[in-house]
């Protein structure tokens, strides 16, 4: 199973309405922090499990569901965690 499939699999418990995952590993190949070998991923997930939770709590839900994947096959995971309502009202984000 690819890491992306495994991420989707584990996050199913949060009843996602959508999950988009991009593999950014190639951008980070060889940098000092990536020696452990895990991949870099970027994810936008929409789920009503996030309703009433602040961003830290949302990310913790995701990290909890991913379990040891965060220490093994995933080196870094950029997360946007939105409720369905937020996904409809803030479709874009300003780049830093």
């Amino acid at each position: 199973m690819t890491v992306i499939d495994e991420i989707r699999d584990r996050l199913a418990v949060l009843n996602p309405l959508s999950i988009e995952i991009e593999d950014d590993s190639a951008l980070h190949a060889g940098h000092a922090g990536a020696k452990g070998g895990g991949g870099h991923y970027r994810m936008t997930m929409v789920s009503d499990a996030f309703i009433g939770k602040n961003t830290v709590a949302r990310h913790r839900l995701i990290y909890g569901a991913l379990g040891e994947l965060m220490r093994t096959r995933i080196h870094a995971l950029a997360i946007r965690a939105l409720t369905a309502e937020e996904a409809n009202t803030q479709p874009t984000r300003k780049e830093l």
Partner: protein
Amino acid sequence: MDIQNVIREQVTNNSVVLYMKGTPQFPMCGFSATAVQILKNLGVTDLFSVNVLENEDIRNGIKEYANWPTIPQLYIKGEFVGGCDIMREMYENGELKTMLGEAGVK
């Protein structure tokens, strides 16, 4: 001293603490670089940064301390704020500026 106590002292004795890979001058990871840039943009000059690549005990201990699996990690007045994505979100919506203001950070 136990590593968890070392971390507790670091985050409570300094207003703004960033656990990162590399240093503010030479970040060794894009996420750490972004975190530093955000704090710079907000005019934070009094930053206590810890290079986790130089200390394996802190690198592992910090993940346990905040129950947060990734680095960078930002603390303000001893409170865990979040990692890079959260800093970016709070920077964009103004929350981080407010939080630093309330903490009296310069």
